[in-house]
């Protein structure tokens, strides 16, 4: 039998040596993993865990055709840790200065390491962000050691991930530039300068500038939704930040294999509005034209479809949400959505309420003749003076009361109804209460309980005085006629979609309640067609080939305790085609008298032409077809006294 290699004592010695080495190694392992475990883990646990937070992308606000009205753009705040800079990177500094559009001397000044004297000890917080190096990916990173909080908004920060040592603290964060686009950040990143960091954040952008500014609202610099749809739908738009708890190596690099917990970010949902950018642009162009021609104090235009969805809503003056912070303090009123937040006397537009109510209650027919030459009339045992007329009117049918806009005729219709019924119908038409419009700080307007009315109010309220309403309320009151007698909730959101473009919620036509019967609505539409025909008060609103139903309004403004004869609110609210309405348009111009013909801004001369111009442009865009000769409303207008 062979003796083998074990015969030599050297082999035994070698084996013994091996065993001894392994024994020593084992002993050391036992020491590290069992005996000294707690101490080792404590030091590692202090340094290695890292929480990486990921900002969620705020959802888009889209128009009905999918165009982005508000979107989020990723931007980077570039900063530097002067203490982490390396000599070898110094030759790249001029290029960095050029990319940042900063003088090299200023860059070098910011790159100079500085220290801050220690402040009084502050209460520790859980997390202090460590900026993402320009060469890595991710958002904020947090170590989990107690330290002072830092924000990317700060120009300098002396937060040190290492345990605090006595003496001056190094300033670890100096801001170089904010609002750096992703493409530029890519180029900075490729320079690979150690110590230059980028903190990513989303900035809100409004690509169409002032288009629909009052509806969209804006998000401020602190990423807080302040106004408009941004604020209303913030819950859906803002999304949810994500984070992951990982470990890092000695060079501060993430070790993805040791990720223990992760909550993925959820991007915000997108909100699709009923606004049509093309219609909105037409409306805003018209407002710009009105502003240039008449220099009004304010003006508002609303366009909606017969289902209550707003196609356009705009006000003059307006603002650019991209530059919301540049609006002077004294002009902040321009950021208000005047169409829902300001109230006006509706004027003659309100006459549709007593007329429709009297028809519905069968007190009159469109043929019923009313003596509009009367100056006084007995009501509830009192002789009440009737309001004045612009020009003398005699015996008029109810249709003519509307088409000629007779104040006395409307007053007598109101007296036929009585206070209680007139008030009830006015409420049913949407006056005196909020309609539930989601954005702009809608107000309810003023319609006092009928028990608190003065005796004279029954003659003034039917002509739109002693009552105040928003533009939207006037618009929706006219919509009652256009929709066949139903008051609809004005809506602006069509759909809410998640990041995967799946519909989360779709808004439908919402009825507040029936106001009048479809037959009464059709008769009213017929009577209102008479307004835009020869002999009516707004021939200027007529659109060739279409039956236009509408009502003018001219109300005096209450200035310095009296009704002014020099300051008026001109309005025209109408729809077309009268028989099958496709679009409802309201134009309200506040105080355009000084540039109006004859110094008075009538609804006929100021607002009605705007209605026509907008209507004509909407015909091809919304594919509106004429009702032709068989228009039911047109027939009523002709046969029932619109024109005798």
């Amino acid at each position: 039998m062979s003796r083998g290699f074990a015969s030599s004592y050297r082999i035994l010695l070698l084996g013994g040596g091996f065993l001894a080495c392994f024994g020593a190694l084992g002993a050391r392992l036992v020491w590290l993993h069992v005996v000294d475990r707690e101490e080792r883990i404590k030091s590692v646990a202090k340094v290695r865990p890292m929480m990486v937070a990921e900002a969620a992308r705020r959802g888009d606000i889209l128009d009905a055709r999918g165009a982005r009205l508000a979107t989020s753009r990723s931007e980077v705040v570039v900063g530097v840790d002067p203490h982490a800079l390396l000599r070898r990177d110094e030759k790249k500094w001029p290029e960095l200065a050029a990319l940042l559009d900063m003088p090299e001397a200023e860059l070098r000044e910011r790159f100079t390491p500085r220290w801050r004297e220690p402040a009084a000890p502050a209460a520790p917080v859980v997390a202090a962000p460590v900026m993402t190096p320009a060469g890595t990916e991710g958002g904020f990173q947090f170590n989990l050691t107690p330290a002072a909080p830092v924000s990317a908004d700060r120009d300098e920060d002396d937060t040190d991930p290492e345990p605090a040592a006595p003496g001056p603290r190094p300033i670890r964060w100096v801001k170089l530039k904010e609002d750096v686009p992703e493409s530029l950040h890519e180029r900075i990143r490729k320079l690979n300068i150690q110590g230059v960091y980028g903190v990513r954040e989303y900035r809100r952008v409004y690509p169409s500038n002032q288009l629909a500014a009052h509806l969209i609202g804006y998000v401020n610099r602190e990423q807080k939704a302040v106004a408009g749809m941004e604020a209303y739908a913030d819950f859906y738009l803002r999304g949810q930040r994500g984070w992951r708890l990982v470990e890092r190596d000695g060079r501060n690099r993430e070790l993805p294999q040791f990720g223990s917990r992760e909550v993925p970010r959820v991007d915000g949902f997108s909100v699709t509005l009923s606004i049509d950018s093309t219609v909105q642009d037409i409306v805003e162009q018209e407002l710009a034209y009105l502003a240039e021609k008449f220099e009004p104090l304010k003006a508002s235009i609303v366009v909606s479809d017969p289902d209550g969805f707003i196609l356009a809503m705009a006000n003059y003056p307006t603002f650019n949400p991209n530059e919301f912070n540049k609006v002077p303090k004294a002009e902040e009123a321009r950021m208000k959505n005047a169409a829902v937040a300001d109230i006006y006397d509706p004027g003659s537009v309100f006459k549709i309420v007593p007329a429709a109510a009297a028809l519905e209650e069968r007190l009159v027919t469109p043929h019923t003749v009313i003596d509009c030459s009367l100056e006084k009339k007995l009501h509830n045992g009192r002789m009440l003076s009737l309001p004045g007329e612009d020009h003398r009117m005699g015996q008029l049918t109810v249709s003519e009361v509307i088409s000629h806009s007779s104040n006395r005729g409307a007053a007598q219709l109101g007296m036929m109804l009585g206070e209680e019924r007139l008030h009830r119908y006015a409420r049913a038409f949407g006056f005196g209460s909020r309609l539930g419009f989601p954005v702009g700080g809608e107000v309810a307007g003023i319609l006092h309980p009928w028990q608190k009315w003065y005796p004279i109010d029954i003659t003034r309220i039917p002509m739109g005085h002693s009552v105040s309403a928003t533009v939207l309320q006037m618009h929706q009151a006219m919509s009652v006629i256009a929709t066949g007698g139903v008051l609809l909730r004005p809506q602006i959101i069509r759909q809410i979609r998640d990041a995967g473009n799946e519909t989360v919620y779709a808004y439908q036509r919402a009825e507040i309640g029936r106001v009048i019967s479809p037959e009464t609505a059709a008769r009213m539409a017929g009577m209102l067609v008479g307004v835009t025909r020869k002999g009516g008060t707004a021939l200027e609103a007529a659109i060739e080939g279409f039956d236009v139903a509408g009502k003018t309004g001219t109300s005096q403004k209450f200035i310095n305790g009296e009704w002014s004869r020099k300051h008026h609110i001109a309005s025209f609210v109408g729809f077309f085609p009268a028989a099958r309405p496709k679009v409802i348009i309201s134009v309200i111009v506040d105080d355009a008298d000084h540039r109006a013909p004859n110094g008075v801004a009538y609804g006929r001369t100021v607002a009605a032409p705007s209605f026509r111009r907008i209507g004509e442009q909407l015909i091809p865009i919304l594919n509106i077809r004429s009702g032709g000769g068989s228009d039911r409303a047109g027939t009523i207008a002709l046969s029932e006294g619109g024109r005798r």
Partner: protein
Amino acid sequence: MKKDSSAFANQLLVGLIVAICFGGSIGLGTVWMRHQISVTAKDNRDLAAQIARLERLIDEKKTIIETEQAPDKLRTLNVTLGLGLVPMTQIPVEHVTENVVERMARLAHRDLFTDAAARPAPVTFRIAQH
């Protein structure tokens, strides 16, 4: 027969070497596997980061495109470039609400019932000449 006293040591050493090799292989395999897990995790993270980066760049480009398509910018371009584009106005189409077939038939045959159509066509005779 002489008893071989080093046989046990031989076996022990062989066993030890085999055990060390086996344990080392297991250890190396484990280390390699952990390394591969790390590499894969890092690759995944890098890919996710790259996808996110590309999405952000796409978003940025989309925003730039939308901004350039804003109505006021297009109007400015229309003027600057002298394109002469005008807003769309009412399309000159006659909307027909009556029966289309009857209308087409009537238009196609309207000459049949005019006075000219009702008048007898003149009859001419050619006289033969011999």
